[in-house]
């Protein structure tokens, strides 16, 4: 399986912005994640949804980037949600207690079998 470079595309309005993430979320996604947050903040969005549907791999350095984005958003008075997570990564978001601070959408049961394309990690 190849390493897939990370990209983040921002869309939305002043009410809600969506950051569509794609690729491997690791330390190398640093600049892309920061730029995405800056862009979402420029929209003055009060709520930011991180869409992970096209993310096949998240490691601990990727989690650190989410923590950093979450820190900025909270400081700026924005809420952050996550969608499109596989069951495995939802479990990791719960173990790390990221889910205490981010609403996790697409509530599939943890431990459910996932397709190869969607699981990836």
């Amino acid at each position, binding site marked *: 399986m190849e390493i897939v470079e990370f990209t983040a595309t921002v869309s939305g309005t002043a009410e809600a912005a969506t950051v569509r993430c794609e690729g491997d979320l690791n330390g*190398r996604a640093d600049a892309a994640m920061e730029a995405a947050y800056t862009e979402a903040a420029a929209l003055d969005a009060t709520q930011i949804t991180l869409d992970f549907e096209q993310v096949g791999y998240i490691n601990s350095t990727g989690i650190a980037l989410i923590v950093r984005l979450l820190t900025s958003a909270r400081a700026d008075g924005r809420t952050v949600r996550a969608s499109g997570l596989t069951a495995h990564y939802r479990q990791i978001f719960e173990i790390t207690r990221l889910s205490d601070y981010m609403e996790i959408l697409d509530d599939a049961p943890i431990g459910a079998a996932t397709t190869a394309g969607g699981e990836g990690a």
Partner: protein
Amino acid sequence: MRDCPKALPADDPRNDSRTPGSDGDDDMTELTRPIRRLLGRSDSPEPAAVPAAPAVAEPSRAADGPSIAVDIPESDPLLAYLQTATGPVEIAKLELDSPAVAAMREAGVALVVPLVSQGELIGTLNLGPRLSEQDYSTDDRRLLTTLAAQAAPAIRVAQLVREQAHEAAERERLEQEMRVATLIQQQFLPRELPNLPQWQIAAYYGPARAVGGDFYDFIEMPGGRIGIAVGDVTDKGVPAALVMARTHSVLRAEATRSDSPGEILARANALLVPEMPARMFVTCLFAVLDPATGRIVLANAGHNLPYVRTANGVIELRATGMPLGLLPDIRYEETEGTIDPGSSMLLYSDGLVEAHDPANEMYGFPRLAEEMKVDDAGSELLDRLLDTLHAFTGPDWEQEDDITLVTLRRAAGVSDEPHGESTLLTEFSVPGEEGNERLVMDRVAAAVEHLGLQPARLERLKTAVSEAAMNAIEYGSQGRPDISVEVSVETTPRAVVVRITDQALSGPVPSDAEAPDIDAKLAGLQKPRGWGLFLIRAMVDEMDVTTDGTTQTVTLTLVREEGE
């Protein structure tokens, strides 16, 4: 102590103060040339020798010919006199109860010119009588005073340069000796630790700057038993390393002839006594472990007693005996114990317990016994002991002695049940380059694909492997593509075992790293990173870290469930 310049011949043209229009600098240059050549500081504690003037003035011979040594002991009043003298001193007229003065008179010295630099007497210029048999004139003395004042600083500089060169050479010699000692030492340390099912074995050897003679060894013995030796040679440097090497060889040889640790030590002692250098000996503990039962039999030649953490507390396994190499015909008593599942054993050298904190308090046995009470898995005990030691000694600690630690832990939990026969699924290495953790993860996933692990459990294994590989790359290889990370995947009927080995370039993985706390991270009290070990532990059933002082291996165990 001082070395003084050789006397110049009286009436030497270079010394002729009566030369009209003579250039003072030129005179000094001519005069100090032989002085520079002849001056030097001795490291000998003996009194300084003062080369004196030849009694007969033969200019061409006297300047370069043999000199007569005159000792000036530090206690001789002549030194104090010259220190405060304002110019040349006529030895014949000097009324001083001084053996050095008598020796100078005997040697034919007529005039002594003190060479003083920055208030310190650094030498003397000794002159014999003038060839003309006339006394030294006032002009002569004035010129000599001027010359001495100008020459002394130059001579002092020459002395300092020579001292520094000597010290640098001595430092280089010591460092070279330490390099040799380290090389010898490392040649004899095991390159691999025993790989025993249900046992986690870790070892650490940390040399002091002046390498001591610590060693440890694992020796395969009949019946699947393992001989474990930990020793410490008195003295440091190359002599200690050579004795260590010899002891290591003798123990290995004797372990093939007997399975009794007492007999092995007794025979080793008999061989070492006749060849042991004076004032040297070896403390050594030799244990024989039966991994199948946990039974351990040991004998002790004056070494620290091992600690065993049992379900009922921490105990010492006591056995006594003389160090190796001191006296012939020594018998070594044996003691035995059992390491139960979940129990640990520590063998160590005194570099650990004799370490001091900045207030000069010793680490000590009670502190070590207290540390042993904590139930760590595998090498976490070793890592924690080192962390505790470093916290105790502080960051500026200069390690006083070698430190050797060997820990054995009989696995508890999932490992209590035998894993059964192991099958190697794959073995490979990857360059220690950022991003290759993904490659490791995918190759491990491919290797276990046929086992039919449940998808969610496979994902957990993959995340743990990815994080362990990332640590190995980032810390063990420091991101260097030329430093590889080794990976092996084995399976047993009970579990999947992944081992990831790195070169530990950044030292061991800290076992007590601050647990990540999302509240603290969001509050800016912790860095956003620091999730790796936490995730690994959460993803697999067991994580164990072992080190042999050169490499570090993280072992991940995922228990297989029914149908997998």
